[in-house]
């Protein structure tokens, strides 16, 4: 059996995965370290009859894909920090109007233009809280190209299932690193298609009336049902309303559809956790160093384990609480000032046993960096 093996940058793996997932429309604006995704789409999409747009900026890119999604297309855009900041108002619009779309943020160092070509994981909180108002979001990440491929497909599936924007929160290291991976055979990873309404032409269709399971069947713009879409609080027809009951219900719906399904959405990987007394929690490229260290110390008998998060938001508080219950030390490994650390402290009963192993200087955090911090925590000195 011939295997479709590729040896490419993470950005290209992500782009290939999006096409595997059924992407037919991409709009973007170039920015390091995500540009390769945009370039790949310009090349590949027209080959399969898809559409590529280079817009005038990032918010326009997100607006354009939201419009395309409404006509029934699977859509994506890709950017990095400054562009992700520019997108925030349109991101809120996609949340409010429940438009499936995938937004890739290949993180660079920030704030502002920051460190365009260096490693950082500083946008974790922004992915959830960058846009105004109370809401919930799905954000995923991956540490290697094989996982990245699967997580990218998963992003499209979740966007359709929950009618929501999904953020792929990658980082510069994974985005630019070259590594081999296998493109799964078509059909190997199940794809979730658009859930379309079965309401017939001429029958009143309620675009914003959730079914019992919370899902909202869509009708393509340009199809047989004409309806209104607005970023204002709206009723089941999509018409603006400030009726307190309708506002309350829509607000709850937008949050509950995600937070009530954490158990279905959440994905992670476990390494040597069964008997671990010190548990590392990490994600994205940092998890590569964490895993390297764990495997290295295991061979010398140290009871180290790793929990690698693939779902960042909604944050898996329950999972973390359970896994860390008996650990002596919990060490969060990340390239920021402790954005996931804070969530972990909230999740577990004894937050004083939670420590941070980080780098914020644009350098990739190495196994030695983590090892040195571990020794300090364990009172061994470096």
């Amino acid at each position, binding site marked *: 059996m011939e295997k479709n093996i590729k040896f490419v940058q993470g950005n290209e793996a992500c782009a290939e995965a999006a096409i595997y997932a059924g992407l*037919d*429309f991409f*709009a973007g604006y170039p920015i390091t370290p995500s540009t390769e995704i945009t370039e790949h789409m310009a*090349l590949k999409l*027209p*080959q399969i*009859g898809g*559409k590529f*747009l280079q*817009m*005038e*900026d990032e*918010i*326009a*890119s997100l*607006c*354009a*894909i*939201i*419009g*395309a*999604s*409404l*006509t*029934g*297309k699977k*859509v994506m855009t890709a950017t990095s920090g400054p562009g992700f900041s520019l997108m925030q*108002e*349109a991101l809120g*619009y996609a949340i409010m109007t429940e438009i499936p779309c995938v937004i890739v943020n290949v993180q660079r160092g920030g704030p502002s233009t920051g460190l365009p070509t260096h490693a950082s994981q500083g946008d974790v909180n922004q992915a959830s809280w960058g846009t105004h108002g109370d809401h919930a979001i799905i954000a995923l990440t991956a540490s290697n190209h094989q996982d990245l491929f699967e997580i990218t497909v998963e992003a499209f599936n979740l966007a359709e299932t929950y009618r929501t924007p999904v953020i792929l929160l990658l980082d510069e290291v994974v985005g630019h690193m070259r590594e081999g991976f296998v493109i799964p055979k078509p059909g190997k990873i199940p794809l979730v298609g658009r859930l379309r309404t079965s309401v017939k032409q001429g029958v009143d269709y309620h675009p914003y009336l959730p079914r019992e399971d919370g899902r909202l069947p869509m009708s393509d*713009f*340009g*199809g*047989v049902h*004409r*309806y*209104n*879409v*607005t*970023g*204002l609080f709206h009723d089941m027809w999509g*018409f*603006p309303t400030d009726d307190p009951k309708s506002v309350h219900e829509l607000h709850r719906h937008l949050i509950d559809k995600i937070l009530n399904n954490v158990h279905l959405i959440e994905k992670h990987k476990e390494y040597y956790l069964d008997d671990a007394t010190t548990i590392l929690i990490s994600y994205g490229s940092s998890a590569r160093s964490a895993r390297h260290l764990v495997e290295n110390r295991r061979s010398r008998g140290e009871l180290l384990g790793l929990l690698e998060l693939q779902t960042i938001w909604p944050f898996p508080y329950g999972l973390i609480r359970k896994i860390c219950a008996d650990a002596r030390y919990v060490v969060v490994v990340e390239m920021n000032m402790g954005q996931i650390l804070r969530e972990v402290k909230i999740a577990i009963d004894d937050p004083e046993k939670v420590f941070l192993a980080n780098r914020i200087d644009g350098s990739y955090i190495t196994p030695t960096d983590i090892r040195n911090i571990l020794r300090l925590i364990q009172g061994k000195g470096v």
Partner: protein
Amino acid sequence: MAVRDYLRERFFPHMWCPGCGHGTVLNNLLRAIENLKIEKNDIVMVSGIGCSARISGYVDFHTLHTIHGRALAFATGVKMSRPDLNLIVPMGDGDALAIGGNHFIHAARRNIDITAIIMNNRIYGMTGGQFSPLTGYGKLATTAPYSNIDHDFDAVSLATAAGASFVARTTTYHVKQMADIFQKAILHKGFSVVEVLTQCPTYFGRKNRAGSAAEMVENYKKSTTPIGSKASQENSDLIERGIFIEKDLPEYCGEYDKIIQKAMKGK
């Protein structure tokens, strides 16, 4: 079909002030569509935020009420994925040319087949009367309480320079011309811009002592003149109205189809 068949009557009364020109724009736009006999299912109206943008709520098309200034970017996405649909994008002067100015010039430059309508009341109506990029030097607004020192854009010259292949201007006084221009703009294959001078009696009118709504409308008769008219040559203060640009240029969606053919061949 009658004009009222294009309305979502259950969402009336509308939110506009008595005498607001936006209703006149709605009325004549629907007349144009009625004359063209376009199926309601074949029209997508995309709007941003503003009093003007609320127009999309009242019409029985596929309607997308988006965020301030970005309507054309959303419309570009809809049009690119469904080139067979008619895209109509009504915008306020602030919506189109302040916060949305960048999207406006780039949509024009691409010559994508969208009908953009600028409902120019020279003021931010929705937020209560602040000056816009079309208010003009020397006018008054709540954020120009002493006198506005910002110079205005000429929307027609801007659209022309940016590459729009259809550019026109009319007013709420000249309703027959308005409906006629809308009709041509919708039929035009490419980016078409129609600037409609429309009155906001509540804010621009009151702040600048422009009189009642009726007087403001009447004034459009006096302050405008057909393109190239004798009056226009004699008095450069008069604002020209009519169709300034109407030319056949390659349209963006059609151009992209050629890219698809090229890419598929080379594969």
